[in-house]
Structures are given as structure tokens and as C-alpha cells.
């Protein structure tokens, strides 16, 4: 089932299927491990529209919801 990263349930694992953002941001995201086919797990969601914390491999990462909305993921088991 397809959704976006910001809408994963807490603890949910997704496979990145599409990154909708400009080239520079895409590069930055890739440097942090957010890239096509990568597995990401949503760990936390800050209240009041605050940022998200995700885990990619051994790295935990903070990103804003605006960015996460541009990351389409497929729910993985």
C-alpha cells in the first residue's frame, strides 16, 4: 500500500518509492540515506506539526513534515 513518510504509523517500516523535491534537496536527503529503495522506519512524530524522527539502518534522523510529505513510501512488513 502506498503512502507518504509523514503518514506512516509510529514504528511502521516503509520502502522509499519516490522522492518529490528539488535536486539539491534530493542530494542532501540521499547523503542522509533517504534514497529510492531505502528502508525507513518512523520512530517519532513531534506534536504541533513538529518534525519526525526516522531510522535508516543504524542512523536516526530528524526531518520536517514538509520534506516527509514529498517522500512516497510503500508499507513493508
Amino acid at each position: 500500500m502506498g503512502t507518504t513518510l509523514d503518514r506512516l504509523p509510529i514504528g511502521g517500516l516503509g520502502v522509499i518509492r519516490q522522492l518529490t523535491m528539488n535536486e539539491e534537496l534530493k542530494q542532501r536527503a540521499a547523503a542522509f540515506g533517504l534514497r529510492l529503495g531505502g528502508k525507513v522506519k518512523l520512530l517519532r512524530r513531534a506534536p504541533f506539526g513538529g518534525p519526525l524522527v526516522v531510522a535508516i539502518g543504524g542512523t536516526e534522523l530528524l526531518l520536517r513534515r514538509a520534506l516527509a510529505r514529498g517522500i512516497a513510501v510503500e508499507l513493508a512488513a
Partner: protein
Amino acid sequence: MKHFALIGLPNTGKSTLFNRLTGLSQRVGNWPGLTVGLARAKLLLGGKMVELVDLPGVHDLSGYSDDEAVVREVLQTGDFDAALLVLNASQLDRQLPLAVQLIATSLPCRVIINMADEAKLLGIEIRPEVLTERLGVPVLLVSAKRGQGWPALLDELNRLAAEPTAPRHADLDRVPDNGAAIAAAEGTLSDGWQLPTLLPARWSARLDNWLMHPWLGVPLFFVVMAALFNATYLIGTPLQDGLGELLDAFKVQALVPLFAVLPAIVQSLLLDGVWQGVSTVLTFAPILFVFFTLLALVEDSGYLARAAYITDALMAKLGLDGRGFVMQLMGFGCNVPAVFGTRVMRERGQRLLSMLIIPFSLCSARLQVVVFFASVLFTPAQAPWVLTGLYLLSFAVAIGTAWLFKRRLGGCSEGFLLEIPPYRLPGLKHMLTRATAEVRAFLQLAFNFILIGCVLVWLLTHIPAGDGRTLADAFGQVMAPVLDPIGIPPQLAVALLFGFVAKEVLLGSLAVIYGVPEAGLGAALTTHLDWVSAMSFLIFALTYTPCLATVAAIRQESRSLRFTVLSVVWSTGLAWMLTLLFYQSARALT
């Protein structure tokens, strides 16, 4: 002499490794835009002198952030015999592409996998010999903090330095872009680096359940911050007072008799001008030292990233990120370390925006002025509300300024990505060496800046301008057209000038102006000023230009005279308009 470049991602312990190799102290963390002042150190390797240059931490050689541009520029223009790449052992999956890119530059490389101890704790298995074979360059596993794998690293570096090489520029045209590097790195890791299927339950995660809790996180954040400030002032203030007394004693015991033979005017210049400047600068040193030690603790322990998570929702609306909030709060203690602290931010725009609003935080020196005025001019029942009102005003001014300038200065807001590192226990020695380096840097800069300011104010108050008046009196007359509409009597213009040097001397200068001892200042104020004028003076004094030390810090950190001028002009202009608004409406209503 040979030249080696030290490259790595942020949070790889690169600086710790640099320090361990060279014995020099350098601070952890990276800062953008610093094209000069890269840390360099010479060391003897393989019988040759080698200069090691520590480059800013980067994620990607093909990227376009400030840091990445600096690294590219240095690699492309400098002659290097080799490049040493530092990677974090726990994160090879996303760091290896940088190795692929660096190897492609055709500079001789050594890959140093650092933080082996932490990776082991996480249950990660690393086989450097497999990675050496796959990458085609020697890969070494070390822990710079614990010294693990150090003899092997030194052997390898000695061998590398002894090899006859021709120094060269890095060939950046051959660097694959990030996507290609990632693809190339992908196959390399299998067998060579394995994450445990399930990371062992770490206390890091448990701690995060508290510190990043949806509604406990915010109160805990304020508890941590309150502890930090209290510790800074609990330890720093007695030191500052002690040093102040020591300097005063030195002045009275040594300088006064020493200069006694000089003409009175020269004595005054040296004691009230130059010495005043020197001692003002020096009294900042203890509090800065304590602050930087504690900031190192907050940053290196990993809490700063959690604080950013907690406060980001609010700061995002102001065009800032969560780390800016910590510095804004810090500014309520003293603006100077807060301005230095903005280094934890990566993007220059965000740093500038933070530096622009930090001076609006009511620092403790200004608080002293407020408390004094409030207690003299208002009843005990009113005074706390005046104080609260001025705090709210300072918040409102900071938020308004951020909102106004966010488009001009603030960087790309959605691109805010921050690694949440596992908690670490920073070494005490490292925190202390880092604090020492920071304080030294501040003293070097501030000395000239503040000294000149103090001497100028002395000149103003001592050079006669005819009719028994000094330049300062004349200055008051000149400023009258500007100060009249906001209800500030011309003789107070000099006090504002003193306040520019250091807010701490504002009250003292008022006492001089009214010709009373500081103890009699309260009575003098009530006879010379009504409450509307006093409030006007207060509002203006709290909002106008930050003290010289803060201006010096902004100049040093922004590396831009234009921005420094903008900061001073904006705050002074805003102060004038706010005071005008207050004074005119208060006069109209009463």
C-alpha cells in the same frame, strides 16, 4: 613538507582523531563559511614533516552546501600528498559513498573507520580486510577516543608519508555524483559490515522515550536548560566577581601608584579608559569558559539534537530551526556566548537570523538595570509586572524581527535534516580544551574592539568642548532632536553611550551624570525623571544596540561588517520606534 587532508562527515569524531594525532586542541562540530582558519597542524610521520589540514565535515563531495564548497575549493586548489577519510563505524551504510567519491579524485587515500568501540556496543560487525580489498585502498579500524587500533594507524601513516609522492590537486571532475557513488558503494558492504538484525535495546532509546516524549519532552527541555543556565551562573558569577575584585585590587595596588608620576589626564586615560576596557574584557572570560564547557557537554552528549526536535515546531514558523531556540534562551544569560553558540547551525542564513535576534534576549546585565528602575520607580506590587512586560516585549521583538527577516536571511526551511546521534559521554579533557580555545579566540578579538570603544568613550567624556562642557555634553545637545521625541533627557545620551560599551556600567554612568554615589541614584532618578520618561529610557536601553562585546562576537561569527552594521542599526532603529510609540501614546493618555 608533505600535506595530508583530513576529510569526513559530521559526527565521525574527526576532530578527536585530529587532536589525538597532532596533540592540538580543536573543537568538535562544523561551521559553514569558514574559508579561512581551517585547523592545521604539523607532525612527524615516516621521517618527514607532514602538515595535516582538517577540513569541514561534509556529506557529499558533489553537493553545494557552504561546507561542501569549502572542501571542494581546498581540495581543488591545494597540493596534497594524501587524503585521510574518517568514517563512523556505525554508519558505514550511508558514509561509504563519500569514500567512493574521494577515491575517484585519484588522491592517495586511507580510510579510517572511527568509533569502533561504539559500533561494537551496537553489535555491528566490521571486517576491514574485506573492505580494503573491495575499495582498493587500505581501511583501518580505530577508536580515536579510546586509542584502539592506534599503533596500526600510526604504522600505516608512517608508511604513507615515507612513500615518494608528487603532491597534486584533487581531480574533482572524476568524482561521481551522489547517486552514482551510492550505487557503487552498495555492493561493497556485504560481508564487510553487518548491522545486527535487531539493534540491542540501548539506554539511548530509553532515554529518548523520556526526553523526546510528546508532552514530557518540553518541560524536561526547560529543566535541562534551567540547569545549564544555573550551573553557568552558579559557577561563573563567583569567578567573574572574584576576577573583578582581583583586577580592581591590581588597579589600586599596582597601577595607581605606578602611574602616579604621570599627568592627571594621562592617568585618567590609562586607568578609566584603557584599564576599564581591559578589565571589562577579562571579566567575560570565566563565564564564557564555564558556558563553553557546558555547551560542549550538551552538544557532544547528543542532547542538542533532541532539543532541536522539541522546539522545532515553534522555530520553523520563524524561519529558524530548533537549535536556534537553545541559543535564544542562552542569550537571556549573556548574548556573547549565545552568538558564539550559533556555530552549531549549518546554514549561514539561519545563523545570521539567529545572531540578529539573540541581542533582543534580555541578558543579565540589562536585567540588572530593569530590576533597579522597576524597584525605584514602581510600587512592589507593580514592579514584577513591569519586569514581566519587558520580558514579553523582548520576546515579541525577537519574534517580530525573525518573522520580518526570515525571507531575506533564513535558508531553505524544509531541507532541515539533522542526525540524532546516540548519547555519548564526552571526555572532560576534551570539553576543557575546547572551552579554552573558544575563550582565547574571544579574548583576541574582543580586546581591540572593546579597548577602542572604552578609549573613545573616555575621550568623549574628557575632551573639553568649551564653556566648561565636555564632548559628551555636546553629544547630548546634538542628540537632543532624536531623543526629545522619545522622552529621554539629553544628559542621559552619554549613559546610553556607556551602555553600548557594557550594559553593566549603565547604572554607574547614570550616577556620575547626576553627580550622586550609586547608592543615591534611586532618589536622584525619582526627582529627575517621571515614570513615563523612565519607562522610555528603559525600553530604549533594553532594545537598542547590544554591548560592544556582543557586537564584536557578531562581527567575528558573521565575518561580515555589513551584517554587523545591520544588526546595530536595526536594533537601535527599532528601539527608537518602539520608545517613540510608547512615549507619545503615554503622553497623550496621561
